[in-house]
């Protein structure tokens, strides 16, 4: 199959990639760019592990062709912080033990980053609703919600005045 060239920006860096037309964005990120933090858990858009941020919106990179990312800006989990300098969501996840095996975690972080960027005041119910599209088999979700609530402050959430 003939390969096509695509141009996309990932975590602030522009890339030109040659991919087969049927290559998913997840495979292009993982195999083409070596960004293996994006995980593939089901390949049919249900588990959410492969979620990346495309122009600010959380998207399933297993359901998107790499070619569709042409000229778009992608943020992956690698763009949210580094081991020695965790981003606010990552630090909150660590503090609240919101991950165990860590396989689903990148998808939760990207989903929540997209949510809190848009809605820093999202409450627990809203957060639960949004991450209900992501599966986690280890944590039971409780700590993930706690971590997200705490991380809101870094996204501009203001604590409501006590009455």
């Amino acid at each position: 199959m003939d390969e096509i060239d695509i141009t996309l920006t990932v975590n602030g860096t522009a890339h030109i990639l040659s991919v087969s037309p049927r290559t998913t964005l997840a495979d292009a990120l993982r195999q083409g760019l070596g960004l293996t933090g994006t995980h593939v858990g089901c390949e049919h858009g249900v588990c959410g592990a492969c979620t990346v941020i495309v122009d600010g919106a959380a998207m399933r990179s297993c359901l998107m062709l790499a070619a569709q990312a042409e000229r778009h800006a992608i943020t992956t989990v690698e763009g949210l912080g580094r081991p020695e300098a965790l981003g606010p969501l990552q630090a909150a996840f660590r503090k609240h033990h919101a991950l165990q095996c860590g396989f689903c975690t990148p998808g939760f972080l990207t989903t929540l980053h997209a949510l809190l960027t848009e809605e820093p005041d999202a409450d627990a119910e809203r957060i639960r609703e949004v991450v209900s599209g992501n599966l986690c088999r280890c944590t039971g979700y409780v700590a993930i919600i706690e971590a997200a609530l705490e991380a809101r402050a870094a996204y501009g959430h203001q604590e409501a005045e006590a009455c």
Partner: protein
Amino acid sequence: MLTGITFPTDAATPVTGTPVERLEDARLLTGTGCFVDDLTRPDLLHAVVLRSSMAHGRIVAIDASAALELDGVVAVFTAADVASDGAVPLIPIRLAPFPESQAFRQPVIAVDTVRYVGEPVALVVATSRAIAEDALELIELDIDALEAVASTDAALAAEGDGVLFPGTGSNLVLRYTAQMGDADTAFANAPYVRTERFSTQRHSAVPMETRGLLAEWDAEHGHLFLSGAAKVPYFNRRALAEALGLGMDEIDLLEQDVGGGFGVRGEYYPEDFLVCFAARRLGRPVKWIEDRREHFMATNHSREIACELSIACARDGTILALAGRLDADMGAYIRTNGGVVPAKAGQFLPGPYRIRDIHVDVSIVVTNKTPVGTYRGPGRFEANFFRERLIDMAAADLGLDPNVMRAHNLITAADMPWDAGKLVPYEAETSFDTGDYPVTLTRCLEEIGWEKNKHLQGTVIDGLYHGIGVACFVESGGAGPRENARITLETDGTLTVAVGSSSVGQGIETAHAQIAADALGLPLGKVRVLHGSTTLLHEGFGTYHSRAVIMGGSAILDAATNLKEHLVAAAAKRLGLPNTRLVVENGGVGSGDRFISLAELATDGPFSANGTFANTTRTYSYGAHACHVAVNPQTGAVKILDFVAVEDVGRAINPLIVHGQAIGAIVQGLGGVFLDHLVYDSEGQLLNASLADYLLPTATDFPNVRAVTLELHPSPTNPLGAKGAGEGGIVAVAGATANAVAAALAPLGVTITDLPLTPPRLWQLISDARAAAEPEH
């Protein structure tokens, strides 16, 4: 000379027992971990598996000629290729090795006969996974159908072609009886007896990362490397060595980050052999990543047991005897876990209660479905549901508060150690080590507000029926026979710990580091834990049966003790003092004001010591779960208003991790009660092999779950005092939840005996009960 108190030390405050943040998190949170599919190699080939689409049949022909013509396809291997090296190897049985099971082992690739949908028939190897999948569709597979048996009833009734292994004459692998005391006499003389039938549905662990393997054959040195190992790498190395005709020193299994195990991942499966076979045959690295659809049909299933259970009681609620019959649907083959699932269900039928007269008949049956293995709390989850439901029924018959009845029968501290008899044929007699079981029930009842809320049983509030259910459990951990570790004080002053335990994502890097740090008096940041890979130690036993902290952690303590001897000897030379005066403490070695830090001493190193912990005495954690539900009678939907699990784990090395294990286990268990169900039709076709059809708990399903960890009675079986902490959170979930739903719907005459409690099923039960209650016209 660097002695005296002016030298800065690494003295650290102890971290064991404190909720330190996990050491593995930084990489996992930033996408810099390494799972098996993250590995790549030059010249890498990709394998996919052609699987049977038929539940039972004879392979007539496999024509791969068109597939082989496809550009990029390198090879298609079938049983004929594997047999060219000798007989097609069988999957060995690792646990619960009933001799009768041997005839039911699985070949690593189907030979002539397929026995379940998903059984490997051929392995396609190509230059990309996409091409290999394209090639899959070009293989012509001709299978003549045989009678498929998709239930234990059908399997036991089958004759002729319906017998999976004709040489055995029957689909009944074996039937055995386990007993204590004299249940027959106790039942004959009992003032109250009740018998009920129960069942738990086939479901499984479904970890977020599917299985995956990368095999590399080093032809020059005759050495095979297999990445993607988990759970029991050393056992699998032995199995592979035998199957491939290699020496143990010619194979290494390498562990990467592992995306969840829960029992199913890391066992020796057909693909473990096939990928290695292909890599050696082709002389190139071969990777196989299971896709989600094949995960549902290829990775072990679990939990499918039917039970008839009888209880004999005195009028005051004293349980006099228990008698049960368990029928376990094992799927098509007996794989590595042998008969452990039904055997543990049989062992844990009496649970945490003072029952002396027990009779259990266990039947192990093969059917044309995916083979069964262990899933978190194997057998316990099922047995707990059967027994705890029956206790609630008996209490209602006897007019007793079910939790007063539980408390009346629970094993107390005065009963310890409790002789739990020999209810497992292949194990020695066992006894429950320590504990005061009523204490956890009392705490659990306080947490759920039993006294305050029990008037809600069966009441309707805003159209919803309320119910509160409770279940008590005991859970074993710490399987032997031993575990090994090595600790090295590196020349830079850091500690490297190598341990035979494996990580399945549960956090042992942190828990083991805490143990090692305290043993040597160093800060946690100086400790690095390596685990799982067979390159690290001569022998290891891995992670299952809640054993990693108990066995691996204790081996680390032993290695630390041995390392301290080396360090004292080295310090003695440096300080010019006799060994006998020196102790390792506060991050150094010294005596009085003569002191040398480990950092300084390390420059003479590295120093290394091995450790072993051998123990075949099990630990027994225990506790109680309680659940408050509201059931919608119009839809059958159940809302969990509150769920609390209380468990005495003996000693929590890291309370943060223990709490996370408990919460995660509860939610997994609630999935097993309400959602998870591997559905087969009568022809043995799996009907819901995708995450869109097989429902798992999501963030909105069960938000109200709590866990209380107690450290009341350490285990005397190991120096840490630890008991298992990863499985107790799931064991009593079905018992407590089903009791709650049953209590809620009791006014309608609904009886709960079968899982899962899906809305359609509950709606049907409610409708049937209402119809039955109406007078006939």
